[in-house]
Structure formats: structure tokens, C-alpha cells
């Protein structure tokens, strides 16, 4: 038994040496070296896949050298991984999500010669000298405003699967500010179209349990929801299954989720009216481009929204088929009003919980 264990350990050691060798080797001295650290895994069909697509596009079109590292779901590995790449010869280090903020606030000041980008959150610039960190925030509230407006138009329309009840759904992964930012925009957008709208709101409590997501979405559809918005990563895919089972509509999130099922399950794809895109890819490509030009404002946080094409609704064949010319017209008008500042969408960031509760209660079914 012990011999086997020693052999296993030896194999594991060799494996790690070999992979480490691959990581270090093959560097081209002139190219700018970019590394993307993902605190999760690729394959989520939304958030991280989008980030990956953005840096790969930069590699192809901007001629930078790109390395993507999946750190997995084990939180204890994230900080050492960030510290590791910070001591290597990368020029630009990209991380994402609020879970990485604290680590970055600690490590970035120790490496003033490195440049860092953090997306979907901002570091606290008052905490330390973070003049080498650029933060990207997304105005998902603006995109969700459009999604909410569309949902309200669908539920009040005479579309074949819509019912007379003015009730729409929202399936959130967790009750956290970034998810609630989607919710706030969604509710405001829906109210903009139909002041009496009701929204069934559920939080699954996990981003990785699609069966539970389906169960909650089914509960919403059974209550009379005829279109629901999923903002729950992998969990949210359960909603799309529920939509098919109950023959109701759904709204996708982050990436174009109708295209995801276009080939394998066209019936399901045909129920996804549109997806609220969070173009992490565009924002990272833009940031790398600005960095190469020397124009990226390090030491600041920027919020990217409709104007920067960082959020928006997906336009595909299903969207064109399902929605009417009138709906698309209205959405274009709303978009123009948001861009011109005529409509300002509230954000969940910095909103206190009493205010958020009041907003949620104002659309609670049965109230």
C-alpha cells in the first residue's frame, strides 16, 4: 500500500513539474503578456466564458500574448495563485468578481511595476496605493431595465404563450448586490411599461444547482408567471428547462442563451425571447486595447453600460420572430432615453436594504 502511495505521489509530482514547465516556457520577449485568472471554471456558458472570449480576441487582433488560468472553486487557492502570477513576467494581470477584491487590494500594492484589471467589481482605492489597478463595473441595471420593459410588454401582449395576469418572474442566484443590480433595473423597466406589474422573485442560493433552479422556476410558472429572467449562472439554465416543460417564455443572461440551445434543442431556444448580455468580452478587449495605447486610466473604476456596448439585449432570429416591430421600437426609444440621461436607472450598489425591500415589496404578487 505504501509503495503504491509513493508511486502515486511521484507521478503527481512529475505531472506538476511538467505543467509548471509549460507555464514558464515559450515566451516571446517583445509581446505584451496578459494573464486572465478565473476564480472558477470555464464552461459556464456565460460570465467566465465571455471573459475568456474577450482576451482570446485580443490575442488574435491586438497581438498580445495571453494565458488563461482556471483557479477552480477552491477559494484557498485564489490568493496564492494571484501572488504567484504577480511575481512572474506578466505585464497585465486580469481578475474578476467581488470575491477577488480583497486579495487584489493586498497584493497589487506589493507589485507597483505590474498592472492589474479587475472586472465586475471595484477595489477600494482609499484602502491602499492602488494606482496600478483599473476596475471595470457593468451597468447591468441599464441592460436589465430593457429586459424588464420587454418582459412587461410580453406579459401584457397577446403572444401565444402569454396569459392575462400581469406577472413576470426573476430567478436570482444569490441575494447579493450584483444580482440585485439586475433586479432593480428589471423592476424599474417593467414598471416603466406597466405600473401595476407584479414580479415573482426567487433566490436559489447557489450558482451551481440547475435542478433546484428548475424547481423554483416551475413554481413561478405555476403561479402564473409567463416570462421569467434568470440571473443565476449554471443554476439559471434550469429555468430554461422549466420554460420548455411549461411552455412559457424565458429571458437569458450574460451570453446569448438562445444560441446555446439552437442546435441541440431548438424548441427550448424558441422560448428564449432574448438575453441580457453582459459583454465582459467587449470590456476586456477594450481595456487591453486602451492599455496598449497607454490610455487605460489606472487607479480608477469605470462603469460601462449601454453607451460602451458593455450591456444590451441579444438580437437574434428568435428575438426577431417573437417580438413585434412595435416592441422593438419601444425598446429602441427607451435605450435612447437612457443614453441621453432622460431615464436614470437606479442601482443596487449603495442602496440600503430598506429601500431595496420597499422596491421588492412594491411588486410582490398578491399585495
Amino acid at each position, binding site marked *: *500500500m505504501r509503495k503504491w502511495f509513493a508511486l502515486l505521489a511521484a507521478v503527481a509530482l512529475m505531472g506538476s513539474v511538467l505543467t509548471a514547465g509549460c507555464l514558464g516556457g515559450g515566451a516571446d520577449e517583445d509581446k505584451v503578456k496578459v494573464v486572465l485568472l478565473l476564480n472558477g*471554471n*470555464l*464552461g*459556464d*456558458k456565460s460570465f467566465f466564458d465571455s471573459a475568456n472570449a474577450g482576451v482570446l480576441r485580443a490575442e488574435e487582433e491586438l497581438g498580445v500574448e495571453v494565458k488563461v488560468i482556471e483557479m477552480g472553486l477552491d477559494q484557498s487557492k485564489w490568493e496564492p495563485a494571484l501572488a504567484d502570477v504577480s511575481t512572474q513576467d506578466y505585464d497585465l494581470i486580469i481578475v474578476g468578481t467581488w470575491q477577488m477584491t480583497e486579495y487584489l487590494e493586498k497584493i497589487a500594492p506589493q507589485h507597483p511595476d505590474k498592472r492589474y484589471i479587475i472586472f465586475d467589481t471595484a477595489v477600494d482605492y482609499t484602502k491602499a496605493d492602488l494606482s496600478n489597478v483599473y476596475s471595470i463595473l457593468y451597468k447591468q441595471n441599464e441592460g436589465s431595465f430593457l429586459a424588464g420593459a420587454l418582459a412587461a410588454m410580453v406579459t401584457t401582449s397577446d403572444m401565444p404563450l402569454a396569459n392575462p395576469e400581469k406577472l413576470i418572474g426573476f430567478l436570482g442566484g444569490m*441575494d447579493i448586490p450584483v444580482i440585485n443590480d439586475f433586479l432593480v433595473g428589471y423592476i424599474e423597466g417593467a414598471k416603466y411599461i406597466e405600473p401595476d406589474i407584479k414580479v*415573482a*422573485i*426567487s*433566490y436559489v*442560493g*447557489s450558482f*451551481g*444547482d*440547475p*435542478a*433546484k433552479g*428548475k*424547481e*423554483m422556476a*416551475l*413554481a413561478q410558472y*405555476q*403561479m402564473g408567471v409567463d416570462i421569467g429572467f434568470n440571473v443565476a449562472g*449554471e443554476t439559471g*439554465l*434550469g429555468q430554461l*428547462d422549466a420554460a*420548455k416543460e411549461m411552455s412559457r417564455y424565458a429571458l437569458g443572461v450574460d451570453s446569448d442563451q438562445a444560441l*446555446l*440551445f439552437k*442546435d*441541440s*434543442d431548438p424548441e427550448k431556444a424558441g422560448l428564449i425571447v432574448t438575453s441580457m448580455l453582459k459583454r465582459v468580452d467587449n470590456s476586456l478587449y477594450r481595456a487591453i486595447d486602451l492599455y496598449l495605447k497607454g490610455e487605460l486610466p489606472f487607479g480608477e473604476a469605470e462603469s460601462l453600460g449601454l453607451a460602451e456596448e458593455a450591456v444590451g439585449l441579444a438580437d437574434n432570429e428568435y428575438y426577431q420572430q417573437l417580438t413585434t416591430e412595435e416592441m422593438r421600437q419601444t425598446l429602441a426609444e427607451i435605450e435612447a432615453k437612457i443614453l441621453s440621461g432622460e431615464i436614470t436607472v437606479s442601482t443596487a450598489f449603495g442602496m440600503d436594504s430598506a429601500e431595496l425591500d420597499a422596491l*421588492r*415589496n412594491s411588486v*410582490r*404578487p*398578491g399585495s
Partner: protein
Amino acid sequence: MKELLETILSPAFGYAILRVTTPILFAGLGAAVTELAGVINIGMEGIMLTAALAGVIVGALCESAAAGLAAAVAAGVLMALVMAYFSLNLKTDIILAGIALNLMASGGTVFLLYVVAHDKGVSSSLASPVLPQVRIPVIDQIPVLGEILSNHNVMVYVALLSVLVVSYFLYRTPYGLRLRAVGENPDAADSVGISVHQVQYVALIISGILGGFGGAHLSMGYVSWFARDMTAGRGFIGIAAQALGGQTPIGTLLASLFFGMTDALSNFMHFIGIPSEFVQMLPYLATVVALALYARRQVTRRARLARVNRPVEAGTGAAAEGD
């Protein structure tokens, strides 16, 4: 509060309970059989996960749900055999073998999915079939009961049937008696010529079959694709259910239904404005309460037995140590 009551009393709620219960019940039955044979299988999570993936891949390749189901069961049995080999032949600790199996399945399924479909999270690019829903002829016509019991995925009925089959096997067949004897006292069983090794192998294989069914239900009935770590703790809840149900199939069914009910209830409670943190806690709170009640019952029963036994012991002068 009124809406919540209306929801709970609606047939849709009863229907949801059965659907939520099914994967827990499969895991619980599998764990119960192994526990009775003295080789508790805590690898149910890994077995179900592997089976779920095998069902999707083979189902998509053969374009047949039946082939997918067969592959899921085969994968479940294979995983159980791996566990049996390590724990029974190589004598590793069965708990450690189970943990290893779960971790291996968690990473291994993602790796396999990537090899086959070039997906790392969800098998949405594979057009995998779904097991059919079944309408039960007579029950379908009964007003409320029909809505609750009929038109489920076929695996829901397989789960309920499994309760009867496992029950019959354990308590009405000679092999079931031998299996329980092995779990009760392997040395005694060995002394009367029962092959402990073989019986425990069979118990683990049965748990593999049941876990295979559970996995197939998750990826080919509950939802229509495989997702990374989609079992999400259902295997472990199943193990808790068999403990709560006292290792009997009927007890496991009742405990699974209880867990299923609290879970289904939590899905509906959001709508009446109860904070989501409380709602998410509910299934686990119910588990703790149920286990506490169970433990209390055990203690009082033991105390009563002790009282009943004492005069007899005193009369015969037998020095009974322990129980």
C-alpha cells in the same frame, strides 16, 4: 400566509414533492442497503454524478433514452465496483474510499465531458434524450390524487417501486436475511458459512444500480442535460434520510419525503416575502430538528428497554454487558 396555504394545498405542490424526493430516495435506498450490510456507501454522490453523465453521453450518441438509462446504471455499478474493490479487497477505509470516489467523480465527469463534447460546465451541445413521462390510466382520472401521482417522469415510479422491491429483498428473501446478518455481526455470519465478502459486494452493486437510476433521473428527467456537480449534495441528503429512516426502505421513503417537502416548500416561500436566507436554511433546519427528534426517541426507547430488562437480569443473575 393565505397564499402559502393555498399553494401547499394545491396538487402542484404534492406533485413537486414527489419530483424533488426522487433523487434523494434513490440515494437513500442505496445507502440503506449498504449500511445494513455493514459497508456504508458514502460515495452515492459520486455514483449519481457519474451515472448522470454516462446517461447523457450514451443517450446522445445512441439517440435513445433506454440506452442512456442502461449506461447510467452500468456506470453506477462500475463506480460501486471500484469502491468495493478498494474497500473489500484492498481493505482501505470505506469512508475514505467514498470520499475519494466523490472527488474523483466531481473532476472526472468534467474531464470526460470536455473530451466528448468540448464543454466544461454544461452538456448543452449534446442533444441528449429525456426519459418519458408516464400517465397512469386509472389514477389519472381521480381529481386531486391524479394530478399529484400521475404524469411523472418514469424514474419517479421506479423509485417508488424500488422501495417495495428493496423491502421484499431485505425482509422476504434468504439473501436479504444473510445481508442483514452480515451487517449485524460479520463474524457470526462467517461462522455459519456466509461469504461476507460476496454479500458486501452484492450490497454495493445494488447501491450502484440505485445510484445509477438516481443519476439518470437527474440528467434525463429532472433536467435535460448534465451540469458540473449537478447532484449538489443530494447523495448526502439521501444518506441522512436512510439514517433518519432507521435503514428500513419505508423509513427511508418517509424521511426522503420529509426532506422533499421542506425543499419544495422553500421554493414557494419566496413569494410571500420571507427573507431568502431563512428559506434557504429551511431544509437543513428541518434535517437538524428531525435528527434531534430521532435521537431523543432512541434514547427514550433504550431507557424503556433497560427498565423492562432489569428485573429479568436480576432474577437470572445474568451479567449482561452493553446491549
